[in-house]
């Protein structure tokens, strides 16, 4: 498989990817804390965007409720840590299991009863909102008053307990984002990946070819949910406090999907490119409005909306395919 990956990459791709990775690895030594915190959030969205991309971009199942898995992962690992002293390095697996189970329930209901497209998307929203209100009444994890993790101002890094400096968190999320990219790309190259794409392009034809559509769609949801939950664990220990609305809210689900769509759905670099674009746009507009001396609250978001609108109107397939074609990178996977 590794060889597979290597041969699929052209030299140009390899050089570009290596450069990017080196730049990101070197970032903490070069950029200041502010930029580092911005890149950290960008990488978080690149990671969860990749997890979503696996389900939507590759297997074609539109989820608008991925905040559910982020939240379940975050709360599971945090609760185990706070109530039972289980370090997140172990709690991580419980978090993935809980999210995978939730994904399995949703997937089972949806695929057994033939819910697809918009209806599936709305089902995922319904589950996420249901869980948000449930957690708003769940006193064991603080309900709406919030769930706080003990904060120790460590200067040393403790990976097992995920306690440490921003730089440690930065490398954790960088590893996750890079790992997710490689993982999704490898997975897409397997038989499973081909089945997923077959289902995405034409479910009925896939079924006719003897592919167990139900089984592979379930797998897509479960893997994506478990991956997303890891992002949730990261978030919980990075922020050290969780509020149901901040974690499960629909605005969170929306944030997750914007980057991969803008970047190029179904491409491996799309979620990364999209996350960087959205992150840079957000911070750039803040700085630009400041520099222009604009004090009116809301202008920045208004301009952001306009730019988002223009991108989706003018570059429907996402930016990465366009960039890749211009610069001569190979794009193995692209939708339609």
């Amino acid at each position: 498989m590794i060889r597979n990956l290597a041969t699929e990459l052209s030299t140009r791709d390899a050089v570009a990817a290596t450069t990017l990775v080196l730049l990101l690895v070197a970032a903490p030594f070069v950029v200041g804390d502010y930029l580092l915190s911005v890149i950290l959030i960008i990488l978080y969205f690149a990671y969860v965007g990749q997890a979503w991309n696996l389900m939507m971009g590759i297997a074609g199942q539109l989820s608008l409720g991925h905040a559910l898995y982020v939240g379940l992962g975050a709360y599971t690992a945090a609760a185990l840590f706070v109530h039972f002293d289980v370090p997140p390095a172990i709690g991580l697996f419980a978090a993935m299991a809980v999210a995978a189970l939730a994904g399995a329930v949703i997937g089972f209901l949806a695929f057994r009863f033939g819910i697809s497209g918009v209806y599936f998307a709305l089902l995922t929203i319904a589950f996420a909102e249901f869980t948000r209100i449930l957690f708003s009444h769940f006193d064991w994890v603080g309900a709406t008053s919030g769930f706080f993790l003990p904060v120790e101002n460590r200067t040393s890094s403790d990976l097992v307990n995920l306690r440490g400096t921003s730089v440690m968190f930065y490398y954790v999320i960088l590893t996750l984002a890079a790992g997710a990219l490689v993982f999704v790309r490898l997975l897409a190259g397997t038989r499973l990946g081909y089945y997923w794409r077959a289902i995405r392009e034409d479910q009925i034809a896939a079924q006719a070819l003897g592919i167990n559509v139900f089984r592979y769609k379930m797998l897509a949801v479960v893997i994506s949910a478990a991956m997303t939950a890891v992002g949730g664990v990261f978030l919980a220990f990075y922020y050290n406090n969780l509020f149901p609305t901040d974690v499960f809210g629909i605005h969170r689900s929306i944030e997750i999907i914007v980057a991969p769509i803008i970047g190029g759905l179904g491409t491996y670099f799309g979620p990364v490119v999209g996350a960087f674009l959205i992150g840079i746009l957000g911070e750039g507009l803040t700085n630009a409005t400041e520099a222009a001396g604009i004090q009116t609250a809301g202008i920045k978001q208004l301009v952001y909306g306009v730019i988002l609108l223009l991108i989706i109107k003018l570059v429907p397939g996402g930016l990465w395919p366009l960039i890749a074609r211009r610069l001569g990178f190979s794009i193995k996977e692209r939708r339609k």
Partner: protein
Amino acid sequence: MTPTIVATVLIGGILTGCVYALMALGLSVIFGVIRVVNFAHGEMMAVAMYAAVFLFAAFGLDPLHALPLVAAGLFAFGYALQRRLVEPFVRRPEHEQFILLLAVGVILTNGALILFGPEARGIMTDYAFDSYAVGDIIIDKTKTIAAIAAIIAAAGLLGFFRFARTGKAIRACADNLIGAEVIGLDVKRLYTLTFAVGTACVGVAGTLLAMIIEVTPALGPELTLLAFVIVIVGGLGSMPGAIFGGVLIGVSEALAGLLIVPSMKSMLSFALLIVILVLRPEGLLGRRPS
């Protein structure tokens, strides 16, 4: 819990449900015909509410008199939006439609914040605090007015689709797009009209809603979600379904508030949504998609 309380709550639920229904109707019309899910639905409703608030504040126009004005304004807005923006997206994948309308929503929300500020704005008519008392049962006056207006508007809309030539042509597009093109219907124009009619419907609903609750810039996304629940429960694309769904959600939330913890009442709506999606994805009154 006395029968009086139950009756008061039930009637309140039905009246709120009628307004909910009208609010969902616009979403349903657009999806039923164009198959575009309007994720900026709530934000458009907030625009209509701001329009009604503005007309009241600036000219003292009662929301009921402002109704045709706001509806016409939103008709024009919907027409332009479909023409300029949504039209090329009709045949694009759902997630791209989603991002497009999400962007429209962001623009509307922040536009409202810039123009009207973050404070809650409402309409205080001289009957805003009135209620009727039938025995010990209390019936909200503004809600009653809004509900009646909602029913009239919904009936008008149903009549348009049943009897008017354009309405029938639009239904033909919804039923069989290729057939409609074959017999020479101008599908593009009909789609634009549908979107405009759906948006005008949002305008009516928003104006009526402004009589009952205050509008803030952040209200939009919450209304979108509520409208979705109603429309799915009733049947996405079905007009009678939207009305039925609205009343059902209105009543079930009211009863849930009475019988269980009020802060959990919308959880019940989402549970209902899940059950209906699983057992009857076409909604209670919808037709199974072919």
